[in-house]
Every structure is written in structure tokens, then in C-alpha cells.
């Protein structure tokens, strides 16, 4: 499909969070720590980014999408810094790199019907001239992701199932035909039967349209299913990478091994024999409760 190679280059990206509370103490949270890799669309492929919650996967996705400027390091698209793009280049970048987010409900503004997300894409990226032309594009894309337009159009987000909502996002991607899809935990809130359908579409997009997907997940079995390359992320850094078939079959890094040995196998005859090593000093979750916003009643 692609005439020339498109390339996203992530180099030495580090991101630290300085919350209002963190700033006071000079403390910081290093979400992403000196990560470098590149994505290209020739040949198109699926690159898995796996890791447990808090490993920095989602922050990395937001950084690549241009939503969160990294503290250090750079993201370039075909050699141009994503955070210094202007006008035409910015448009080109957004046309080429599009997201699928985790929460299929939060993607839709509850105030509007589902259609709006698709129409916005048509208008903002000039995908069609006029209404009937646009409707045709929308219907074609919905069918491409196994949705019947009449089931989806004219509905409010809460009237659709999670699987339908997430597939509407895929339809949006289908319309825009980006070179890269940044999919941040797209199936974590879907049921198994629907999840497979979603993954199949993602695989088809690679094969039919030559799209490259950065597939972020915490579920190792889904990354094995989609195949391709894999990067294992732990505490903000990439600890192991390579082909899915190598890394998930013969893991080298102890963290990858630990992850793999923890995945329950869907076979009653292959149960765990040994007891898991119970980690006593589990990382504690830190919670900062904001002071509630309240007023004294009457004077």
C-alpha cells in the first residue's frame, strides 16, 4: 500500500509526573524511563507493548499521540519532532497516527449521538464532500468492522454494547486509513467472544490496508494471538523485546518469565503445580485524596 516508508521514532523518552503535591517535596514519579524504539509501516505489523498496570504503557501511548509532552527525549514522525509540528505537518501526522482508547464508553461524549464521532472525522479530515457522500463513507466503514449501520447510527453511546462502541472506533480508523494505530488496552473491557472479533479486525487491517498497530495490553495471550513483535515494559523501561514467538515461548528476562508463569492456562489438565511465590512487600498503591470542595452553609 504505502509508496514510501513511514516511521515513528521514539528516542530516549522519559516522562516524570510532578503533581501539585509531588512538587512540594521535589518528589516525582518516573512513568517512562529512557525508552527508545521505532515503528514502521513497511512491512505493516503489530507491535505488542505488554506490562502490568503502572508500568508506563499508557503514558507512552499518550506521548506518541502528541497528547503529553515527554519530560526528556523525542518522538519523531518521518524525522520531524511530533511536538514541533505546525500546520500541514501536524495534519499529516494526525492523518497518519490515530488512537483506539481503552474505555469504549468514555470515548463518546454522552451529550451526542454516536454518529458525531464519525462525522467529526469526515469534516476535520475532509474525507467526503457533502452529506450523502459522507454517509456512504460512514456506512462502508461500519460494514468493514462487521457493524450494521442501522444498529449504530442515530443511537446514543449508552444504547450500544461495549463491543459495538469499540468497533465504532475501529470504523473511525477505517475511514481515516492512518498508517499507524496506537491501541491502548483496546480489548481489556471486552468479553472474550467479542474480544476475538476485535482482534481479528485489527489483524485484517494490517493485512488489507497495511496499517501498523502499536498494541498495548496486559494480557499476554492476546499478544500471542495477534503475533508480531513484542516489548515487555516494567517500571517505565523496556526489559525485553523481540518476536512474540521467541519472547513468549522462551522468555529470557526474569520479569517476563514471572509474567508468563502467572498467566492461567485455559486447560484444566495444565494447572499450576507449584504454589506461587507470594510477594510480601507488594508495591503499595499511593492515594492522594483531594480536599473536598465544600462551602459553609448559609452565613
Amino acid at each position, binding site marked *: 500500500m504505502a509508496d514510501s516508508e513511514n516511521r515513528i521514532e521514539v528516542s530516549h523518552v522519559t516522562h516524570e509526573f510532578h503533581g501539585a503535591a509531588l512538587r512540594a517535596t521535589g518528589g516525582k514519579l518516573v512513568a517512562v524511563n529512557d525508552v527508545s524504539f521505532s515503528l514502521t509501516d513497511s512491512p505493516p505489523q503489530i507491535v505488542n507493548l505488554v506490562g502490568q498496570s503502572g508500568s508506563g504503557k499508557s503514558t507512552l501511548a*499518550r506521548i506518541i499521540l502528541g497528547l503529553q509532552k515527554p519530560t526528556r527525549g523525542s518522538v519523531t514522525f518521518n524525522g520531524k519532532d511530533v511536538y514541533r509540528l505546525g500546520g500541514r505537518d501536524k495534519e499529516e501526522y494526525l492523518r497518519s497516527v490515530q*488512537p483506539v*482508547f481503552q474505555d469504549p464508553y468514555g470515548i*463518546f461524549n454522552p*451529550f451526542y449521538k454516536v454518529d458525531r464521532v464519525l462525522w467529526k472525522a469526515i469534516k*476535520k*479530515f475532509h474525507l467526503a464532500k457533502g452529506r450523502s457522500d459522507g454517509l456512504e463513507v460512514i456506512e462502508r466503514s461500519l460494514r468493514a468492522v462487521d457493524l450494521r449501520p442501522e444498529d449504530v447510527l442515530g443511537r446514543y453511546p449508552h444504547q450500544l454494547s461495549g463491543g459495538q462502541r469499540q468497533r465504532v472506533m475501529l470504523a473511525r480508523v477505517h475511514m481515516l486509513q492512518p498508517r499507524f494505530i496506537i491501541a491502548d488496552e483496546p480489548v481489556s473491557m471486552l468479553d472474550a467472544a467479542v474480544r476475538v472479533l476485535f482482534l481479528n479486525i485489527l489483524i485484517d487491517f494490517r493485512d488489507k490496508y497495511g496499517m501498523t498497530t502499536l498494541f498495548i495490553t496486559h494480557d499476554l495471550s492476546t499478544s500471542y494471538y495477534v503475533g508480531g513483535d513484542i516489548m515487555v515494559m516494567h517500571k517505565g523501561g523496556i526489559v525485553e523485546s523481540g518476536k512474540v514467538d521467541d519472547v513468549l515461548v522462551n522468555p529470557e528476562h526474569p520479569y517476563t518469565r514471572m509474567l508468563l508463569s502467572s498467566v492461567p492456562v485455559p486447560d484444566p489438565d495444565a494447572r499450576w503445580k507449584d504454589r506461587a511465590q507470594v510477594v510480601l512487600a507488594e508495591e503499595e498503591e499511593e492515594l492522594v485524596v483531594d480536599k473536598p*470542595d465544600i462551602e459553609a452553609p448559609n452565613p
Partner: protein
Amino acid sequence: MRRFARSLWKLWSSSHKFQIGIVIIAVFVVVAILHGPIVATIGHGQDPLGTAAYTPWQLPSRTNILGTDRYGRDILALTVTGLASSLQVGAVAGLISTVVGVLVAFIAGYKGGKLDSLLSGTADVFLVVPSLPILITLSAYVTNLSLAAIGVILAIFSWALAARTIRSQVLSLRTRPYVELAKVSRMSDLEIIVQELVPNLLPFIGVGFANAVLGSIFALVGLEVIGLGPSNVIDLGLMLNWAIGWGTLSLGMWPMFVAPIFVLGMLFFAVNLINIGLEETYNPRLRKVAGA
């Protein structure tokens, strides 16, 4: 625009409380706007508000539906005029404080960073300056305050509260996935604020406006009840002040006392109905738990 009308219609048909509240307010607003012709009709061509237009201290009768006051003015005409003034003050104050509050809230909440700290800090400073003493001082020393000027002064001390409540809402909305999706869909900041954030905050803004209007009206009435308000415009508070000062209750001249209190009571009744209606429609968590 059609979408907007439809959501308004949805809101309207969602709650009877909301409907009743709106109808009462609408009636009051119409009366206030038409207060000139209404007063003229009451006076049958002459000014019912002129001193000694009628015999003083009349109880309700055919000519004076609510009777007359100490100076022989028609109490119904006074009430209609007072309502118009009170609503005008409330509208000016409510409008200014809501517009300023919303602007500050959206700029601070959406942009964040240093600008947010600066604007929120300013709002906090304004929040701790007590408004009632300032208002009393002003009305004591600045003679001939116009209705609009009173409204502006009330707004200076009430925008900060609106700004703070709406800002916290903006903060919670701005990291929603649909806002992020809008960003990668090439929507500008202004488009995102207007199309993605504002619609979801309309109920908050609406309630904030209604409360600011009501709050301003009652702040002014409070001042006037103790005789410290501006005394150059007839509003409902000034009527109450007269009613107390002239000892109308001991004289048995109840309309002078009852009329303004009734109108004020209906006003806050209506605004509260709207509040409760919106609360029920827009707070699904509350609705779910309450099973209402």
C-alpha cells in the same frame, strides 16, 4: 442548534418540578418586563405610585387590590415595580458573575499550569473578602447607586464561587477520553471547550446562574430589611423595610408585609424546584441509589 433544542426539550420533559419552577419564573419575568404598562393599567391613567395618589392605609378594595401604603400609593403597583427592580439587580449580578466565573473556570481548568494557579489564587482571595460589609459600606457612602451598579457590585463578590465550582468540573472532564479523541481529531481548544465541555456542564452553569440571581436578590433584600440598602430605587427589600419601619403588622395593614414576602417566597420556591429537577435529571448516581 437542533440538537441543542432537542436536549433542552429532553430536560424540560424530564421533571415536573423543573417545569413548575420554570413556569413561575417565566410569569415573574413577563410581569417584570411589562411592569410599565401593568402599573399604568392599575392606575387607570394616573400614576399609582405618586404620593397621595389614593387615601393612605387602605385595606384591599376594588380600586386598590392590595390596598395602599402610608403615602397613599397602590401596594400592587409597588410590588410589581419592586419585582422588576429586584429581578433586574439579580439578572445583572447573576449574568456577570456567571459569565466571568465560567470564563475564568474554563481558562483555568482547561489550560492548567501557572495560569490556573494565578486565576484560582485570585478567586480564593475574592472568596475570603466578606461581601456584606463591603456592600453596606458602598450603599452607605455612594449615593444614587443605579440598579445596574448594584448588580455589578454584587457580581464582583460572587463570580469567584461560580468559578471555583465549575473549574473543578472542568478538571474532571478535561481528561476524559472523548476530549483526547477530539484533540487527535484536529479540533481546536475553543471547539473542544464549546462543543465537548460546555454541553455537559450546562446544568451546572444553569444552576449556578439561578443561584447567583437568587443570592444577589436576597443579599440586597437582607441589607434593606435592616435599613442599610440603597434607598433610591423601589424594590422588594425596600418595601419590606418600610413594612417593618412603619409597624404595618401592628396596624393590621398586612398587604404591605405579605405582598413582598409572597413574591420573594415564590421566587426561591421556583428556583429550588429547578435545582431539584436538574439534580434528579443530571445526577444519575443519586438517581440510581435513590431509586427515584
